[in-house]
Structure formats: structure tokens, C-alpha cells
């Protein structure tokens, strides 16, 4: 479309959207210039997703103005938005897993161009050119399902670029990436900017936001609460705007020297995943395990809970051997596991919040012939939801209606109701907003104060440093380093990447 010379690429004014009486966005306005990276920050439920959907034409605004290149856009649909060059890369990337990299990148451009027959040569050439434009190397013939997450994301970016993208909206692009992959992504965003492509970076990971964007817009409860050049924001200020309060970061108190030995892992090994893993966990201790993607941290976590069967080694809890490779035995020994991928591994999305908690306590409330004491089961579950301050309209609501932070607390409640001795938390605050994250860290602290052993597996360095007494660093399946909690973040980052 012909753009007026000085008009911004995208301009919004007074955009308002309500869903059946609930205001999701109210009077939001900002603009994005060509080649500019703007960060849209906000907690879950602040209206970020609604704004993306309106820009992409998926949802219609109730009032307000949107113009692309100075031209007012009324009745925006996904097709017109895409034709104007607005491309959204959703969290799940919306790729075709069974097709190759080249096909994923080239097909939508090929279809958009109105060709009736697919020309494989043209698709391949386009895919190759696009990958080159980003300066990345991915096998064109690899099936997308076989790629690591970071590469899938690059393929999604390439697909957007192949169809003349002018604005790429990235929805939480870094949640699944390790520190090093995030750095690569930021480099790519810089390249895009140099190419004149604008980027709207939607994230609640704060450090990244400041690094790559010129301009920051903060939403809270559907309203724009702050806007300005990125240079004017620092982490504390962003957090304050997003949450409306200060979130204090304090390292945990030192472990008492007489803390009893709770769990001992010796010589745990699995070919191709991890080797010679030895560590002790004391009562009341929070132990961090970190490492880049592929370092074996998730396999190790799953092995502790019996979901991965180790080849050799032993896990002892309270001096008793735990049968390896059996989640039931692990749970019986008092090990609990909160998985990394809450939606597919942790929750029964369409079941009630109560049932999601209660499933962990069926045995305790079983009577003769397996008949449940339902009243007791629900009272128990309700009690735990209260103790973890889960905010829900009704405990009988589907668990998927909750925000990420509350969902995580539901999974925690399920395990805590079993009074575990050791709790393994894999990525405890992935996809959780800033406020809830601090509260989850508070819960971890409280649990350790009660004498529980907690293992936190994470690549979120500030999280590790504020919650853990000790941090183990994994590389290529081995524990290569050990640091005390409260170490400087830069130090940990260096040891991870070295």
C-alpha cells in the first residue's frame, strides 16, 4: 500500500475492546515506525493478547482508530492485516510439523501469490533466500517437527519475512529459549530492524525487553500505564509499572548446618542424556539445577521422578532406595514433580480445579471398595487452594480458565497435599507473570522453611539466584560446576555459557 512519507507504519488511538461487559482494553494508543522495535510489556491478563488479536484482524475493536501507513483501517480482517504486512508469530508458531523447512517457509508466499500449482523450485529458492537474509543455517529438507524449538521459531520468522512482512508481532518469543538462543533471536531482531521491518515484541521477561527495543509500552489491566524510550526504563521500573508494586528480590537465608540429609543421588546415568550425576539434598534446602537446552537438566529431573529410566545409579530418600523408572514408587517415596510444560504434562485442562488437586489425594480419601469420601477430598483440596492463595471464581470451574500463575499453584497444591519430602520443580515460573512469579518464589521459600527439600530446575538466572541455596550447573549431561546462591548473575551466566 502507498504509505504517506511521514506517517508511522502503525498508529493506534483510543482502542477499546470489551468482552461481554469485561473491559480487556481501554483507550490504548501508540505508534510503531518502520524499522522500530517496540516492546509491549504487561502481566498475564493485562490485555497484550487482545491487542495483538485486534492488530492481526482476528478480533474487532469496539472503538478507536487504527491506521497502517496513514491509511485508516476499518473492518480489519486477518486477510487484510496480512496483506498490509502485519504478521503474528504466536507462541506455538503455527507451523506444519510434517512438512519440511522449505515448504513451511515458502508455501504461504506461494499460495499468496495466487499460483495454482506449487513450484517446488520456486519454494526452495524463496526459502533459501529468506534464511540467508537472516544469516541462519537450517537444513531446508528437515521436517519441522524434528527441529529444536529455537529453530522452529526461526522458521516461523522466515515464513513471515517471505510474505513481505512490514511488522512482525512476536508473542512471548523467548519463553522456550535458553539464554544463548535468546541472544541469537535478539541478533535477528536487530537485522530485521536494519532491513526496515518493525517488530512488536510482546513479553514479560524483562531484561530482554530492554536490550532490543527502542520504545516500551506497558499495559496493566487493559490500560496503557507507561510509555517511553527504552533507555528510560530499568528492570525495577518496568516491574513496578507492570505489577503496580515493587517486587523485592532477596536471596534465601542460610541453611542451618545441622540440616538432615534428605536425598542422595549417586552415579545416576542414562546413555545420551546424563552421566555420573551425584548430589545431596538436605532438609530445608533449595537446590538449583541449571544448564542450556540439551544439557540434560530436564531428563535428569524426569529421572528423579521415574519418568525417565536411568541405566545405572541410585536415588535414596531418607536413607531408603527408591525404585528407578517408576513414578508411582517415586511418589510413594515422597518425591513430587511439577513439570515444565504445565498445559500438556501438568494439568487436566477441561477438568475442574478441585479435581486437578484432588487427583493427588485419591488414596488418602479411599474407603472400602475404592469408594471415595468426596466431602473429605474436596475439603482437603479446597484447603490447599486457599493455602496457596489460588485466585479462582469457583473451585468447580475448569482449570484452564485460570491464569498461568494460578494454574501453576494448582499443580503445586496437588503435590503439596501429598506431603512430599522432596519437590522437583521444573521451570516453576515459565509463562507466569511477574507478580505471581514472586509469590511462587515465596511459596518455595516457605516450603523449604518447613523442612522440605526443593529442587528448582530453571534457566531463569535471577530466579535461581533468589530462591536457591546452591546451584548445580549441567553441561553435556554432567554436573560441571557448583555455586552458592546469591552469586552475581553475571558470574552464573558466564559459567553456564563457558
Amino acid at each position, binding site marked *: 500500500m502507498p504509505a504517506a512519507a511521514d506517517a508511522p507504519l502503525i498508529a493506534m488511538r483510543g482502542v477499546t475492546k470489551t468482552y461481554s461487559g469485561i473491559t480487556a482494553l481501554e483507550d490504548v494508543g501508540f505508534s510503531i515506525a518502520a524499522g522500530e522495535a517496540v516492546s509491549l510489556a504487561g502481566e498475564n491478563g493485562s490485555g497484550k493478547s487482545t491487542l495483538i488479536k485486534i492488530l492481526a484482524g482476528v478480533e474487532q475493536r469496539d472503538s478507536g482508530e487504527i491506521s497502517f501507513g496513514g491509511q485508516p483501517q476499518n473492518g480489519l480482517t486477518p486477510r487484510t492485516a496480512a496483506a498490509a504486512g502485519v504478521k503474528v508469530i504466536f507462541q506455538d508458531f503455527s507451523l506444519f510439523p510434517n512438512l519440511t523447512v522449505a515448504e513451511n517457509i515458502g508455501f504461504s508466499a506461494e499460495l499468496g501469490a495466487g499460483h495454482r500449482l506449487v513450484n517446488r523450485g520456486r519454494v526452495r529458492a524463496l526459502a533459501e533466500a529468506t534464511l540467508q537474509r537472516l544469516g541462519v543455517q537450517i537444513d531446508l529438507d528437515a521436517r519441522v517437527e524434528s527441529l529444536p524449538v529455537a529453530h522452529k521459531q526461526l522458521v516461523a520468522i522466515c515464513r513471515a519475512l517471505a510474505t513481505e512482512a512490514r511488522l512482525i508481532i512476536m508473542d512471548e518469543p523467548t519463553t522456550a529459549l535458553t539464554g544463548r538462543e535468546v541472544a541469537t533471536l535478539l541478533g535477528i531482531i536487530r537485522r530485521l530492524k536494519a532491513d526496515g521491518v518493525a517488530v512488536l515484541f510482546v513479553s514479560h521477561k524483562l531484561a530482554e525487553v530492554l536490550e532490543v527495543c527502542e520504545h516500551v509500552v506497558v499495559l496493566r489491566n487493559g490500560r496503557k500505564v507507561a510509555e517511553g524510550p527504552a533507555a528510560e526504563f530499568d528492570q525495577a521500573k518496568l516491574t513496578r509499572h507492570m505489577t503496580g508494586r515493587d517486587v523485592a528480590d532477596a536471596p534465601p537465608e542460610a541453611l542451618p548446618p545441622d540440616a538432615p540429609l534428605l536425598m542422595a543421588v549417586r552415579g545416576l546415568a542414562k546413555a545420551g542424556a546424563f552421566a555420573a550425576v551425584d548430589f545431596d539434598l538436605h532438609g530445608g534446602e533449595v537446590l538449583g539445577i541449571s544448564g542450556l537446552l540439551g544439557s540434560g537438566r530436564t531428563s535428569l529431573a524426569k529421572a528423579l521422578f521415574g519418568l525417565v529410566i536411568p541405566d545405572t545409579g541410585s536415588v535414596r530418600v531418607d536413607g531408603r532406595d527408591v525404585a528407578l*523408572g517408576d513414578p*508411582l514408587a517415586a*511418589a510413594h517415596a515422597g518425591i513430587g514433580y511439577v513439570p515444565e510444560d504445565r498445559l500438556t504434562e501438568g494439568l*487436566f485442562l477441561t477438568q475442574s480445579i478441585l*479435581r486437578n488437586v484432588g487427583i493427588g489425594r485419591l488414596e488418602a480419601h479411599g474407603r472400602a471398595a475404592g469408594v*471415595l469420601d468426596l466431602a473429605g477430598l474436596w475439603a482437603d483440596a479446597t484447603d490447599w487452594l486457599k493455602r496457596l492463595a489460588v485466585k479462582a471464581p469457583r473451585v468447580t470451574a*475448569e482449570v484452564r480458565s485460570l491464569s498461568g500463575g494460578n494454574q501453576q499453584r494448582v499443580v503445586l497444591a496437588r503435590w503439596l497435599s501429598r506431603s512430599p519430602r522432596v519437590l522437583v520443580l521444573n521451570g516453576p515460573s515459565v509463562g507466569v507473570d511477574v507478580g505471581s512469579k514472586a509469590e511462587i518464589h515465596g511459596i518455595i521459600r516457605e516450603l523449604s522453611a518447613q523442612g522440605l527439600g526443593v529442587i528448582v530446575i530453571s534457566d531463569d538466572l535471577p530466579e535461581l539466584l533468589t530462591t536457591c541455596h546452591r546451584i548445580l550447573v549441567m553441561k553435556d549431561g554432567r554436573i560441571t560446576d557448583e555455586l552458592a546462591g546469591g552469586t552475581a548473575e553475571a558470574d552464573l551466566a558466564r559459567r553456564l555459557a563457558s
Partner: protein
Amino acid sequence: MSIAARFAGTEARLAVIAVVVFVAMALLSPDRFLSVQNLTSMAFQFPEFAILALATTVAMLTGGIDLSVVGIANLSAIIAATILIQIAGPAAVGPDAVLWLAASMAAALVVGAVAGLFNGILIAVLGLPAILATLGSGLIFTGIAVALTGGSAMMGFPAATAWLGNGLLFGVPVPLVLFAVLALGIGFLLTRTGFGLKIQMFGTNPLAARFAAVNVTSVLIRVYVLSGMLAAIAGMVIMSRANSAKADYGSSYILLAVLIAVLGGVNPYGGYGKIIGVVLAVLSMQFLSSGLNMLQVSNFARELIWGSLLIFVMIVNSKTGFGMRRGKPAPARPRPEQSSGSGR
């Protein structure tokens, strides 16, 4: 719309459908459909496929399916028939006959349980997809039944056998009583026991069930054993009503059973289903079937109607957002080599 309202809506909609079909058939053929004779004969007819529908429902709640129920029903009936004919003999009367009927019933239940165990092992331990495992095993069960009988009908039971399918208990048809007891029992099992809750949670998300330390292998195996035993009971009712046992009785019942479960609001992807819905769906189907019979619609046309109805109901369910996992692949089954197998 709130979840509770939507689910209440599913069952309410079914109740309306049952009434509409009943009224429509009554209007189309008032003297015959509403006759005492027709109403009684319906009460004798539907329990056999209704019990099969309960069997498929239990399997479908886990996100699986049991296509072998008709095969299990016939095989169980043939084993029971062998006892009744060869050991008891047609002349048996009195307590003797009752005893042998009970023994044959017990044998049928054992056959059903063993067949279900076979399905359960294929699905839970070896990790085969339920639809293919039970399609195959159903053919095996039917094949064994054919081999045992040479494909012909087995006849000559003691007279007492007829009570199971044609008798009255306090004026109520015995098969209807049997179905009512089983429906209530399964309903209780699903809502009030740990096993029932685990079935529903596993059906919602098998992977999360594994991560929540649910003994998934054991749950799945028990589900198929239960389904097999229900099928065996249905087989006994069919045998009694037909006064014979044969390898290929009720071959159209499998489609009917699945149709009833889906019509009854059981989510074919697992995790949601209510027995009251299945009961209402059974009634609708029986009214429809009986009415079509009176209107002299051919059997072939009826299969066409069942098939179309099944597709139609699934389309309606997907349009209302119920019973479909749109835009999200079904969670992966637990990989068999990682199964614990220690679930008692």
C-alpha cells in the same frame, strides 16, 4: 456460557430429543406405537444394546474405544450356551436349572473379563491404538466363536434360561432391571470412586495422569476388563432373548453402541461423559428404531440412518465446541517402554 450450564445443556438437550422422538413416533403411528404391547416390547428390546453402549462408554471415557464388545458378547454367550446345553441339558428344571444358569453366567463373565484383559494388555502394556487393537481382537473373538460352533446357532437351553431375557421381576422386564442396575452401578463407579475419577482424568490428559503418579497401566487394563464383562452380560441377555447363541448375532450393535455413547454426550476424545446422557440416548434410539420398524423402514435404510445420525451428532458437537479438541493434537499416549507396570 459457564461450563456447568453447558454440560447441563447437553443432558437437557438429550432429554428434549428423547421426548421429541417419542412424540413424533406417537403421532406418526398413534395406535401401534403407544400400544401396551409395543411399549413392553421396547422395554425388552433395548437393554441388550444399551449394556453394550455402557461398555463402549467406559472405554471412550479414557479416550479409547472398544469395538470388540459384540465379539466378546457372542463368545461369552457361546461358552455359557455350551454349559447350558452340554452339561445342564434342555431338560434341567428347578434349582438345578437355576444353578446351571448362574454357573453359565459366571463362566460368561470370566470369558468377558479374560477377553477384556487381552484388550487391556494390547492397549495399556503394548501401547496399540485402542481402535485397531479392539477391531482386531473383536475379529479374533468372533473367529473363536465360529470355530467353536462351526458358525451355526446353538439351541436347546433349559427353560429357566429364558427368564434372563424375557422374564419379569415385580412386573418389570428382567433385562430392563439388569440395565438399570448396571447403569446406576457404572454411574456410581464413575462419580464416586477413585477408579472412576482416574478414568475421567486419564481421558482428559493421559500424559498429565502419568505425571500425577496415576497408575495409568492398571487403570486402562481395568477399564477394558470392565468393558469386556459388561459385554458378556449383554451377550447373556441376547442369548436368552434369542433362545440361542451364535457367532454373528448383533453385528449391527457395535455401530449402535458407539452412536449411543456419542449421542449421549460422551466425548470421543475422552474425559467427559455422563451415564444419564447415555440412558437418554438409549431411549431416543429405541423410540426411533421402534417407530421406524412400524413405518416399515427397511433394515438397510436403518443402518443408513444410524450412520448419518452419528456423523450429524458429531458435527453438532464440534460446532458447539463440545467434544472436540480443536487446534490441539491429542496428548501422546505414554510410551510403553516407559510404563511402570507396577500398578498392582
